[in-house]
């Protein structure tokens, strides 16, 4: 489903962030990408979304070379990916309802579909009471749950979570990881980037370890070893 083929990223003049990375993520997998801060995890995640361009090598999503497709195709690929980020990336001028509805609106869903689906997702995620609040009126945990609701509402093929618990306390961290596990159980592919040892060891899923821009370990039922 997602394939990295000899990907290298060098920032000028010669700052290599990623070096010759190759791996493949199959449909329905739960993969944790681990590494210290600055190891290159976020750059790797950004490449899947087409936000960073590799200096060498290619990144494929469902057979499409992400960095060679046109703007329309790239937007189509992005719509198939549900993104959850450390800084939430919510739309601050839209309410909780509008943040989630926006995703359905850009997909051209009808108002009726939006009115039915959005409250369902918000209820499932525990934010129905906050439907008319703006993101700045929510706690960090609530904002991250809103980001998850937004990722889920379009029923994407893949969920990409880039340090989703980076700004959360242990209770909210547990909630977010539990939600990701639930999403995975519905058959979705989940890519989790983290440097949280406890989370990775508890999950017991596939672990790709990045160190100084290099892929040093790729293990099924892996553990956080750096």
């Amino acid at each position: 489903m997602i394939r990295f083929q000899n990907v290298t990223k060098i920032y000028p003049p010669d700052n290599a962030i990623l070096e010759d990375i190759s791996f493949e993520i199959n449909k329905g997998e739960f993969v944790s990408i681990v590494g210290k801060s600055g190891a290159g995890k976020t750059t790797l995640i950004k490449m899947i979304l087409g936000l960073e361009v590799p200096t060498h090598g290619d990144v494929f999503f469902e057979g499409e070379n992400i960095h060679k497709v046109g703007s329309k195709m790239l937007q189509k690929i992005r719509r198939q990916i549900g993104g959850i980020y450390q800084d939430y990336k919510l739309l601050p001028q839209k309410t909780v309802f509008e943040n989630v509805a926006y995703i359905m609106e850009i997909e051209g869903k009808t108002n009726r579909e939006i009115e039915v689906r959005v409250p369902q997702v918000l209820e499932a995620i525990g934010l129905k009471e906050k439907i008319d609040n703006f993101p700045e009126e929510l706690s960090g945990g609530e904002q991250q749950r809103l980001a998850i609701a937004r990722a889920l509402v379009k029923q994407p093929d893949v969920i990409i979570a880039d340090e989703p618990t980076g700004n959360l306390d242990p209770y909210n961290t547990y909630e977010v990881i539990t939600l990701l596990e639930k999403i995975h159980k519905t058959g979705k592919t989940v890519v989790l980037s983290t440097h949280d040892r406890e989370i990775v060891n508890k999950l017991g899923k596939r672990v790709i370890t990045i160190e100084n821009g290099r892929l040093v370990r790729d293990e099924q039922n892996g553990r956080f070893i750096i």
Partner: protein
Amino acid sequence: MANFSRVLHFALLHFYRNRGTSIAAIFILTITTLLITGLFFMHGVSNFVVQTVQDKIDITAYFKSDAAEQEILNVRQALLDQSTSIKRIEYVSKEAALADFNEKHQDNAVFLRALAEVGQNPFLPSLNIITNGDTSQYETIANILQQDEYSSVIEKVDFSEKKDTIEKVFSITSSATTFGLALGVLMLFIAILVVLNTIKLIVETSGQEISTMRIVGASNWFIRGPFIIQGAIFGGISFIICFFVTAACTYFLSGGLSVIMPGFNLFGYFLANMLLIIILQLAAGVGLGSVLSFIVVRKYLKI
């Protein structure tokens, strides 16, 4: 259509939720549109002044007292045939000149008595020539009149006496027009820069939001549309304000201005050019608002 109504809804929502910046943007656009409208009126006023000055400058050819009317009319025809820049030529006969003098000085007993003592009509027949204002044409016309074939009928041409004054006046009006145009272009440039920066500030406050919209897969139109429509709304509101301010100002200033510039009706000028003013104000408000929004948002769509 559903997409358009959503984009329109986003634009209205953004406009409402950012009332402070919206009002600021409308204010800036209103000032700019008023400035452009002001330049338009300045152009009209300066044209009127230049026209008035030009109409007052003429060449008069005085004919000998015994010149036959047909001979004078032949000269008139020759002038019309040989110069394309003549606006009009008025023939004033001896009798008409006398009648005009009598009418002008009917209350002045000294003048009338002096005329009576002369005993006969002392006025000469003349051709009063008004050109389109090109000073070089005065020279041409003077040359035609000074040809030998007309020397037997023409007493004098008063162009050479007025030459310096004419050239000075035309130099001033020409400089005024050029200066007005340069000032207008400069003001317009500054106005566009001010509006551009205002819209840039508004869009920049949404920069992060635009990036997020791109990441979640929104199309360019879905992101850009609300800003363009919002820019058009700013422009539309500023147009309405400007139109009524212009109408009110011209209506109330018209009387005062006609005292300074007799014959110029400011409100009449507004009414006569209303369609042009509407197009100008719409282009300045709606056009600038939406086009500049389109340009500014483009920067954020490159991810």
